[in-house]
């Protein structure tokens, strides 16, 4: 329920310096204007469909979120208790902006919205997430997605 600057100093420092792999390269994929792109949302909010398998801990794989999911069917089992949940309880769009993306697609601001979206659990080890992320990339390309909105929590 807090901004980073309001956390106890030790906790803020831990979050700011959280261990992440060092990347030697900086890939940068060019593309057409937004109006010609097909975009998927990939969240790290630990989202899963009600009644399906939750994230149990620091699981490194991902869950599928259908583009036509009813808000009532979306849940999170993100392991952290240190982020605000009252915002997403009222309106999932604060963390997973599916309605906003649908509006942009309907208006032609973006070329298209993927039919399926995905969620990891952001507190998982990035090294363990890598094979799942690379497998997901293949899946996204099969769905003719060219661009991804990455949303944390």
């Amino acid at each position, binding site marked *: *329920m*807090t*901004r*980073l600057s*309001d*956390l*106890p100093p030790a906790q803020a420092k831990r*979050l700011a*310096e959280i261990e*992440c*792999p060092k*990347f030697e*390269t*900086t*890939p*940068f*994929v060019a593309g057409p204007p*937004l109006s010609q792109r097909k*975009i998927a949302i*990939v969240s790290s909010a630990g989202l899963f469909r*009600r009644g399906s398998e*939750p994230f*149990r*801990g620091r699981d490194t794989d991902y869950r599928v979120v259908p583009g036509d999911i009813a*808000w*009532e069917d*979306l*849940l999170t*089992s993100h392991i*952290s*208790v*240190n982020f*605000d*949940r*009252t*915002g997403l*309880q*009222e309106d999932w*769009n*604060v*963390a997973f902006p599916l*309605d*906003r993306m649908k509006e*942009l697609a309907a208006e032609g601001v*973006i070329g298209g919205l993927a039919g399926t979206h995905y969620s990891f659990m952001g507190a998982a080890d*990035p090294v363990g997430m*890598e094979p799942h*992320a*690379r497998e*997901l*990339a293949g899946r*996204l*390309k099969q769905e003719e997605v*060219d*661009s991804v*909105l*990455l*949303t*944390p*929590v």
Partner: protein
Amino acid sequence: MSALGHYLEEEGLATVAISLIRPQTENTRPPRALWVPFELGRPFGPPSDPAFQRRVLLTALRLLERTDGPVLLEDFPDDDPRWQLDPNWLPPSIPGGAGEGSGEALASGLTAEVVALRGAHQRWVEQYRRTTVGVSGLEIAAAADYVAAWLRGTSPESPREGYSAPLLLRFAVDDLKAYALEAAAAGSAKPASRQLGDWLWNETATGAALHALRAALLNAEDQRLRLIAENFIVPGTRVRATG
């Protein structure tokens, strides 16, 4: 999140990330990111404010069209208007005398409060037509009973096949918090998260029970329970100094 950006971009997908923790993003250098000055948990800012959310989203998506990277890291200029306290918000009525004291008092306080909040939670569900309660897969009364059993000092078996007792405890705690916070936010006022948090952690039997559960399990023999107690019951900003 930043690591995902690297992996997906290496595979040929263009990515843009929202960043809530700027120093982390500066370290990991994802291809494109928009830092936002909002609370952790709401990367698109205020709930029920489509126009504001859209501005954040479009600012991020426009980074996909830039050709002057890598690395692009921009800042969103505006604060979340829902950060402001709402003086018109009133917490729901609860039995009160929120249990300090024995495990039994805390346990009964918790289960009684869950019953007392039922009407307010029902109003929430009617207002927003959803709930985020349900991670444990238990009815809320059963989730309260399960946590109450731990407060009474017993080590109950998991009521759900395929889920260990500690895991289900963590999920039941998540459900109890979501239930109370949703119940407290029903109505036309728009409380800031810290108003709701102050109420939950300082005024309610649920909060008292969870503070006590944390304290009790910090000394548990089972390492999984100690880990849950240390990290996954009470937010870091709400932990009370003990002893």
